[in-house]
């Protein structure tokens, strides 16, 4: 580790707590960010000489708050705004260090900070960008790279998101139990979005997308430390760990998709799986099932099978049925169809899939799965039509390449199968 690497790590891990407290003081995202930035600059100057402070977050909050106050006072002299109206609870500045070490207080600070980025008024892409900027502290350049857009465009997206959040009003009152539950659910969704962004772009620019998955896991662990008794947060942690454990097996050396059943299970990261299984075990004790727990349980059944043919498809089917009851959605039914095809064959699965056509006609996986089932049943022409639809809807090169492979495979069989169909 280089001389300053430990400082970077300390700044990154103290960031949510420090930013959360600074947001509470200044009630303004930009002011809080500037104050935190200023504190980081001072940390980089003084920490190498004086060594790390005992509590990095408390140090950053103290220094950031003072520099922010100075700035507001200076600005107010220039613009003649009464500073005290911009600042909240600035009284007892002496006793503030003690206040910040109060666990419950900083828990709500961090939750507020995360919630600001998860505000349902923001579209998903803005939630992700804002969280990566504000909570994780990634640079605009890094985030722009992850989204494959220009830095200017990303800057604009983040500015817009901040404007919307400010217009919607940041909730500063201490949340009651139901507010807290609502915020927690919104934050969990945002973390899942961050993960999915990384997961679905896994074959994008080297490393960037995996970083988003790691970042989502870091955030969900943070959330779990703040709310250790929430089974759905345990479920989400387990789900993300299980999905990420397969990261190295999901693509071959040419970047082509490797389906779950064809993956080299030796490449799955065992420690993540072990942790996830322990987390599911913990969550189950609460007997309060939820969508994340069920999805994690499904992923766990795949993780537990050393070989694909040992997969417990019956249990997976049952879990998807439970998920359908809890959170009815055509995508869940589509996923269940995969389990049904393994249990009861492609005909049974297809009868589950066909009624979804209206709602999923614009969905890559719908046509991909339908094509696969038709292919298994030897209905080659229909399979080709379905695969053609899928290829048109593919969102990245790996998806398109996978379908093309299916089409090539069909073309190989086509002669014989066409003949067979013609004879019927």
């Amino acid at each position: 580790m280089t001389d300053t690497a430990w400082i970077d790590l300390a700044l990154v891990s103290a960031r949510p707590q420090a930013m959360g407290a600074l947001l509470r003081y200044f009630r303004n995202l930009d002011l809080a960010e500037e104050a935190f930035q200023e504190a980081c600059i001072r940390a980089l100057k003084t920490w190498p000489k004086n060594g790390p402070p005992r509590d990095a977050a408390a140090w950053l909050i103290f220094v950031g708050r003072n520099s922010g106050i100075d700035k507001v006072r200076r600005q107010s002299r220039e613009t003649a705004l009464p500073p005290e109206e911009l600042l909240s609870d600035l009284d007892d500045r002496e006793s503030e260090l003690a206040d910040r070490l109060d666990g419950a207080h900083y828990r709500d600070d961090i939750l507020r900070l995360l919630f600001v980025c998860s505000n349902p008024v923001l579209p998903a892409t803005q939630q992700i960008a804002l969280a990566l900027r504000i909570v994780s502290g990634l640079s605009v350049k890094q985030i722009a790279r992850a989204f494959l857009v220009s830095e200017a465009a990303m800057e604009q997206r983040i500015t817009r998101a901040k404007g919307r959040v400010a217009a919607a009003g940041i909730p500063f009152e201490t949340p009651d139990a139901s507010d807290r539950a609502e915020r927690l659910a919104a934050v969990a969704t945002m973390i899942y979005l961050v993960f999915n962004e990384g997961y679905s772009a896994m074959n994008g620019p080297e490393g960037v997308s995996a970083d988003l998955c790691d970042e989502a896991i870091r955030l969900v662990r943070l959330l779990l430390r703040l709310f250790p008794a929430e089974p759905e947060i345990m479920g989400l942690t387990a789900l993300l760990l299980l999905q990420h454990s397969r990261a190295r097996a999901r693509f071959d050396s040419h970047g082509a998709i490797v389906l779950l059943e064809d993956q080299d299970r030796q490449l799955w990261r065992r420690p993540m799986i072990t942790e996830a299984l322990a987390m599911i075990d913990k969550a189950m004790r609460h007997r309060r099932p939820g969508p994340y727990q069920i999805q994690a349980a499904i992923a766990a059944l795949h993780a537990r099978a050393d070989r694909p043919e040992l997969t417990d498809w019956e249990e997976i089917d049952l879990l998807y049925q439970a998920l359908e009851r809890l959170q009815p959605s055509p995508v869940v039914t589509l996923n269940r169809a995969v389990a049904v095809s393994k249990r009861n064959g492609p005909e049974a699965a297809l009868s589950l899939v066909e009624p979804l056509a209206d709602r999923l006609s614009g969905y890559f996986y719908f046509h991909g799965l339908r094509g696969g089932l038709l292919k298994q049943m030897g209905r080659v022409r229909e399979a080709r039509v379905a695969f053609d639809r899928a290829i048109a809807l593919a969102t990245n090169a790996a998806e398109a390449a996978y379908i093309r492979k299916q089409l090539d495979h069909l073309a190989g069989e086509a002669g014989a199968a066409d003949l067979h169909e013609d004879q019927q």
Partner: protein
Amino acid sequence: MLYAVLCYNSEDVTSAWTKEEDDKVMRDLTAVQRRYVEAGKLGPVARLLPTTAATTLRHSPGETVVIDGPFAETKEQLLGFYLIDCTSLDEALDFARELSAANPAAGSYEIRPLSLYKPGELAP
């Protein structure tokens, strides 16, 4: 005299290691351990999963409570530990309950799954 050596570190830091970094640390630690294993001096080595995976059983006279999360009080000190092979967290909790019932002092048992276990070999 047998000594227990307890490892403390920032989870934020160790969980942020990449697989390559983590593998290297484990290799380097294993190299240290090997010499002591060969000398018959090293017993079990265990690596624990993060504290987010922990569950704590608190007991005071007449009352036992299960709490999600690690042991967090500072009034009590670490006095010992057990390794037990269980099929579920519930089974491990039952074991902790039995221990707490047999122990007249109030206290806590943190139950933390392992991510790595090497039995080691102590010379008699």
